[in-house]
């Protein structure tokens, strides 16, 4: 390990010797594994081994970057990169890299995920749990994914550290009928907390409830969002909290710092803690990561920053640095004070949605968008599932929906899913009032 850190440090020293003002080198040894399955059988098992050193070099407010895949090629790569910096254009807004000698907490990555090879048993466990709920005739598909990364980061501005990051994820979709499906996910940073049967059972349970769906009606509904679909919304709000997205008008939070954007019960934070699939102890500038509450009791408190955007907004970095833009790592919604069951019991008439896909915006700054619910859409009356529905679309405004949150459950689940839940989220069941539903005509 120290050998790799030494070689990474060597990259920084060589770049400085060439005349760079600031340099960050981050070496990642990544080991990724995936099982893909459909029709209840394994389609393919995939392995990726990736070794790469990402280098960001600053010279006279010019930022250039490269990737080095073999330490033998360092000299040639750095010379080419520095030559590129010399002909590049100045970015007056570039605020440099974070300075300081930081102490990091110890990584809590699960070493068992470093060596895990036999993953098919976990897939079987999930499929069997789904069959137990929905019967042996189901059609199920999904993925099991594992990640183990060793990270070595050295910055010319002081930060130096190593991190290990682990994650395991199972995603399963179960069809009980051609148009009746349920989706479950199980996400964790460690094997100990990973229970694939939970995902299978949930997908199976929803798939059974979803049988015999009817086309839903247009209208305005109160809707209970399952953690999986609510994760899609949290991903959007979290992404829009990035200062970079604010600067390029891809956010509804432009000029809203300090304003009330949600009810009192809503607090959202970014927190790449040990439990999260996106666990990390420092960001890409080497700043120790932390919890950042960006919406506190309904008030937009901060954007998420790297050093450059923080300087533009006259604040401090929130340790969300990616190379160019700050990003949220792992978004949490604070839990509410009622149970999931109470949330349902109190609903006289409304919808319960479990998953969605294809979220697209007309205008990010305004927030007008639509998204297509799938995998269990239910009409709820007096707290009970009255009818399974299909073929509807949420056509609303993302800021209005944040403002119309009316209930949050105590229970929360870590969710992450292909496409829509693009970053891990700790999501509760949430009631949103007055959501607009449309359908094909």
């Amino acid at each position, binding site marked *: 390990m120290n050998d790799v850190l030494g070689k990474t440090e060597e990259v920084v020293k060589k770049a400085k010797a060439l005349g760079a003002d600031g340099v960050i080198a981050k070496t990642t040894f990544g080991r990724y594994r995936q099982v893909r399955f459909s029709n209840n*059988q*394994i*389609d393919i*098992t995939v392995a990726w081994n990736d070794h790469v050193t990402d280098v960001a070099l600053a010279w006279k407010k010019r930022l250039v970057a490269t990737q080095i895949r073999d330490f033998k090629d360092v000299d040639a790569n750095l010379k080419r990169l520095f030559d590129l910096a010399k002909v590049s254009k100045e970015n007056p807004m570039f605020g440099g890299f974070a300075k300081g000698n930081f102490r990091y907490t110890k990584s809590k990555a699960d070493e068992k995920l470093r060596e895990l090879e036999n993953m098919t048993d976990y897939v079987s466990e999930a499929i069997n749990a789904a069959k137990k709920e929905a019967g042996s005739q189901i059609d199920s*598909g999904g993925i099991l994914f594992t990640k183990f990364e060793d990270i070595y980061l050295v910055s010319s501005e002081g930060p130096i550290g190593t991190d290990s990051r682990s994650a395991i994820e199972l995603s399963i979709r179960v069809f009980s009928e051609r148009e009746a499906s349920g989706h479950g996910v199980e996400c964790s940073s460690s094997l100990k907390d990973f229970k694939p049967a939970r995902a299978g059972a949930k997908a199976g349970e929803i798939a059974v409830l979803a049988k015999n769906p009817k086309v839903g009606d247009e209208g305005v509904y109160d809707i209970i969002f399952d953690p999986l679909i609510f994760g899609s919304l949290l991903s959007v709000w979290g992404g829009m909290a990035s200062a970079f997205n604010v600067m390029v008008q891809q956010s509804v939070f432009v000029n809203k710092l300090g304003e009330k954007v949600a009810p009192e019960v809503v607090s959202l934070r970014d927190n790449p803690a040990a439990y999260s699939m996106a666990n990390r102890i420092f960001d890409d500038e080497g700043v120790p990561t932390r919890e950042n509450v960006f919406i506190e009791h309904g008030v937009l408190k901060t954007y998420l920053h790297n050093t450059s955007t923080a300087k533009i907004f006259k604040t401090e970095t929130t340790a969300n640095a990616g190379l160019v833009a700050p990003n949220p790592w792992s978004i949490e919604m604070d839990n509410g004070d009622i149970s999931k069951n109470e949330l349902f019991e109190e609903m006289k008439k409304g919808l319960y949605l479990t998953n969605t896909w294809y979220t697209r915006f007309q205008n*990010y700054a305004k927030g007008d968008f*639509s998204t*297509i619910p799938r995998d269990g859409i239910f009409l709820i009356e007096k707290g009970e599932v009255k009818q399974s529905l299909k073929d509807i679309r949420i056509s609303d405004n993302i800021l209005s929906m944040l403002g119309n949150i009316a209930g949050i459950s105590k229970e929360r689940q870590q969710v992450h899913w292909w496409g829509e839940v693009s970053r891990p989220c700790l999501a509760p069941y949430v009631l949103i009032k007055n959501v607009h539903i449309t*359908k094909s005509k």
Partner: protein
Amino acid sequence: MEEDIIDYALEYARGKGVEYAEVRGLSQVEERMMLRNGILEAYLSAVDSGFCVRIIADGGIGFASSNKWAREEVREIVDLAFRYAKNANRKDKIKFAEEKGVKTKWVVDQKEKIEDVSPEDKIAKLVNINQSLSSCGVNIPAIMTACMINLTSKYYVNSEGSRISSFVPKIGAYIFITVAEQGKTEQAYEQFGYSGGWEAFQKWGITEKLIHNAKILKNVIMKGKAVKAGTMDLVCGPEVTGIAAHESCGHPMEADRILGREMSQAGKSFIFEGGPFWIGSRIGSDVVTIVDDPTIEHSYGYYAFDDEGVKARRRFLYKNGIINEFLHNRESAARLGARSNGSSRSVNYDREAIVRMANTFVISGDMTEEELIEDVKYGVYMKSFTEWNIDDKRFNQRYVGREAYLIENGELKHPIARPVIETTTLKFWSAVDAVSEKVEFDAATCGKGDPAQGIPVYTGGPCIRLRGVYVK
């Protein structure tokens, strides 16, 4: 890229007594530039290279990849893929549709070699576009510009004797603008793509197109009116025709979706065996023919051979309104008793090749755009779109107009602000009664696969006229 390592990997894999093995090596020279409001945020330049091994053994598939070019690594990677294939334990054994081995080389020509254009000139080109846009008389508070250059060398070998080398340069550009007037904003995203050299910029006419977009958005803010919802005629411009062809023809015709292999991600298809729609079913009117064609030279989705070594050709997906031919790779073709039609694509050495579109478009008719409009008493001309989506069986779709006009008695009137068509695939293509003669293409990045493989494609078509659809 070290071809001897790839050959060695194949020989090592064959030595294990596999049913099938292939090795694909890639080297990608990449450059990315990102500008915010005309200021270069960052310039990335890197070379990525590696190889993957795909093996069929005992009817299962294993895939492993690495970017470490060493024989020891090769053996580890092949062993891993072989073990994974054996462990699949499938009841239905996977087979590939038959193909003959191919030995060939193919390249995409560049009139102006990207390698000869200096970084300064590349940056200057983008800065100039931004400057022209900033001074076009429209208030544009945010302009995001990105340019990606990718020079891909590939070497593909398989256990059936194929040995294919290729070189493909591609350029892509994305521009996202926000126009603000009278306290309101409108936004537009435009993508450009080309397989070939730096001459791409001349062909695209980015500056003119973006200035047009900016003025249109201003016009929509200042003069746009909502359409009175109801049943009316709709003329779709090539951009809207193209996205509809891609979403509601190309995707549902991907055989891996039809077979359920993408069920937990991008979903299945409204087309399935024993269902109401299959090969031979009517899905549109007689004038609707939609093809997917990777062989259009210099198109963003161009290739001569796919990533399973199968020669590319045009596929007639919907032919005169009838479901005609699915997009296949060798695995899906074997399952449905067909032959691969060269639709297997992968974005890199570390991703499996899956069924993909290339350039999907509606075939032209014989009317002019003006003739289509002349014959509309009351309707909307939706020239371009902003928000769009479609459900995961590819049946319920929605397109929201960005540039749109009211049509009254055959004449274009005032701009319509964000008209919406939300309808089914069957209704959309069945309502088409006329198709114009000029096909235009737009570049796009098609999303599919887990992990995601955003792949370059064209969407396109002529103007099409839909009779009696609901627009709101």
